[in-house]
């Protein structure tokens, strides 16, 4: 195994180029190399949890002042707008995000080598990479776009978004299959370590535990497939609904609620319209976990021995304690079972686990390159007794330390955990009650049509409700009579209606 000294001898003369490249890329990348997304999002998430969505959006905007808005900005903005029932605005933001995803998807299919990390990633850090989104985020984007369409009563458009998720999943599956092989081969050629288990002090159990390993992959969610089943069913396409429910069952096995969706499909489709609405409640809780940059010591061979250099790696940190109620009460009489269906927290952990070999390979290359450049500067400075070179070496060392930071970017306003409940209820006004650790939450909805989706989001001090603007009847057509109205609490403590009509604050 070559050490730093022997590398540097072969590399003599290249240090100037490396130094220039480092400086040039650092200049070009600007603030991105120093950005801490986790710190940046604290205030936005805090405002969201307090029900101040307008303020949350202001904070998000203040952190993204430039003309260029990236994928992550549109992810977060779309979710905040959705929580405020601003469906058209949310759709506009998410369509902008989807344009990025579609461009990525196209590249993945036609020229996947273009998706490889750029030079800056090897010289500075992963933060300077264009944010492409994690695979599960891309799938969840389309799922939430579909939920927005459903809220607006546009079932045919929801079907388009659902169909895009199937195509996207196929592209991701193929790309990741190839990528895993390539990273393994590349690491083998370079003799680099890609197992995070070898990283001293890395909290291995956060991304390598039975729950994370039980996931089939990081991007397929039972919610997306269940929703696909629901949309196809509502449009009278049971032959497409069946695989949706079947896949949801495969991804989240042993859930009676999910099993019933498949076993009762034919009966539901052929059932006469008895004035009942098939309502799907989607209950999201908490915020997606954060990625935080932590420094670990990576052994680099030098002078015939191992030099321990600090290298930053991302660590997954839960930021909330999500709570999912076991039941949902309808009109103080009917109890609907709430079944966990998708854990974004686990998907994010699985995504990090799958990404770690690539992250470690880039870190190893980057650390060695920086080490070589530093050694060459110091060596030349001592040899020529040149103060300028010594200062440059010091600057290079400081620059390496300052820029050595892991990429913390991840879609934070996604819920941490998602559950569903489903029931056939009569058309009209209904009071939905949820028991939470902070007290009882109630909301009144006026539902009509044959199918409806109601999205509830439980945050620490807040319950957001995304009801359908218009309900849908069979065939995807919109009836005229629909709406929603907030209702006072049915108990459990004083609750305050916030500015948004479907937002309820929890007493602190």
């Amino acid at each position, binding site marked *: 195994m070559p050490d730093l000294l022997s590398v540097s001898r072969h590399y003599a003369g290249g240090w100037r180029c490396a130094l220039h490249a480092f400086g040039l890329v650092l200049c070009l990348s600007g603030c991105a190399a120093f950005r801490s997304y986790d710190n940046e999002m604290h205030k936005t998430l805090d405002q969201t949890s307090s029900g101040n969505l307008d303020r949350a959006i202001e904070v998000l905007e203040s952190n993204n002042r430039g003309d260029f808005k990236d994928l992550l900005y549109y992810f977060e903005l779309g979710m905040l707008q959705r929580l405020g029932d601003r469906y058209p605005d949310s759709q506009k933001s998410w369509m902008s995000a989807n344009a990025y995803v579609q461009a990525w998807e196209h590249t993945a299919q036609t020229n996947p080598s*273009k998706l490889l990390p750029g*030079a800056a990633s090897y010289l500075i850090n992963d933060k300077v990479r264009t944010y492409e989104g994690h695979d599960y985020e891309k799938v969840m984007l389309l799922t939430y776009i579909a939920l927005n369409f459903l809220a607006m009563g546009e079932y045919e458009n929801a079907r388009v978004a659902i169909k895009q998720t199937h195509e996207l999943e196929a592209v991701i599956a193929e790309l990741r299959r190839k990528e895993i092989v390539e990273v393994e081969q590349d690491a083998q050629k370079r003799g680099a370590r890609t197992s995070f288990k070898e990283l001293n002090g890395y909290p291995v159990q956060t991304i390598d535990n039975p729950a994370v390993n039980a996931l089939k992959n990081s991007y397929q969610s039972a919610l997306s497939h269940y929703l696909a089943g629901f949309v196809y069913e509502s449009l009278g396409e049971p032959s497409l609904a069946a695989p949706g429910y079947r896949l949801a069952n495969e991804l989240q096995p042993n859930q009676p609620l999910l099993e019933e969706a498949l076993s009762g499909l034919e009966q539901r489709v052929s059932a006469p319209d008895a004035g009942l609405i098939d309502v799907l409640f989607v209950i999201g809780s908490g915020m997606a976990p954060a990625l935080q940059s932590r420094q670990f010591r990576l052994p680099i061979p030098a002078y015939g021995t191992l030099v321990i250099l600090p290298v930053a790696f991302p660590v997954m940190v839960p930021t909330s304690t999500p709570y999912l109620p076991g039941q949902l009460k309808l009109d103080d009489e009917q109890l609907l079972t709430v079944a966990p269906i998708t854990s974004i927290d686990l998907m994010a952990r699985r995504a990090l686990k799958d990404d770690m070999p690539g992250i470690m390979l880039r870190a190893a290359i980057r650390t*060695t390159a920086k080490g070589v450049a530093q050694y060459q500067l110091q060596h030349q400075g001592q040899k020529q007794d040149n103060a300028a070179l010594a200062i440059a070496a010091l600057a290079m060392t400081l620059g390496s330390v300052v820029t050595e930071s892991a990429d913390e970017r991840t879609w934070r306003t996604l819920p941490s955990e998602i559950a569903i409940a489903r029931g056939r209820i009569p058309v009209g006004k209904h009071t939905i009650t949820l028991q939470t650790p902070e007290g009882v939450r109630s909301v009144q909805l006026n539902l009509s049509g044959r199918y409806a989706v109601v999205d509830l989001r439980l945050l620490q001090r807040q319950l957001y409700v995304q009801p359908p603007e218009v309900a849908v009847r069979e065939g995807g057509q919109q009836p005229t009579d629909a709406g929603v109205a907030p209702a006072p609490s049915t108990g459990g403590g004083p609750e305050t209606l916030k500015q948004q009509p479907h937002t309820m604050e929890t007493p602190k």
Partner: protein
Amino acid sequence: MIDLSRTRRLALLPLFAAVALAAGCAQEQTRYGDQRSIETVTNQFSSTDLQMIAESMTRSMLQSSAIVSGNLPIVTVQEVKNKTSEYIDTRAVTDSIRSELQKSGKVRFAVDAAAMQQQVEEVERQQGEYYDKEQTAEKGRMVGAQYRMEGNIISIVKQAKDIRDVYYKFNLQLWNVRNGLLEWSDEKEIRKTTTKG
């Protein structure tokens, strides 16, 4: 830890980046292809599978005694149940079969359950005061089907490290509505195996 020759190349990274940028400017080309050419991009259900099933089923059904000896029998298309874990639009398959049968001139089709709502709405709309009563479709004049067509598709997927095998079986049946007899049935099997290169 890091391969020596690879590390030396780091100095050339900016050059590689410039080349990559230039390569990225290469223009894409889009052209029309043969819609009936064999598609093997992945081993999921494909346009070729749809065409193969539709052709096979149409050919077989046109030779059945119910069609040959019948006097332009009237058929209604019911659901082909998708029992796979793949999002296969079975209605697209039955639409193709129906089109081919219709083109043969040996079968007529009655409105199916999925299109019934639109049919009823149109008949009712024509009862309005804006229509000429002599030319409007009257209620109670629709013709019931003599046969109903239904079926299912199943798949068996096996995957090992470097191989993925998918087997599809499409089954179609023609039932006599009046007496409940199965007049015709046929199957089309497809096997696709992908090995990782």
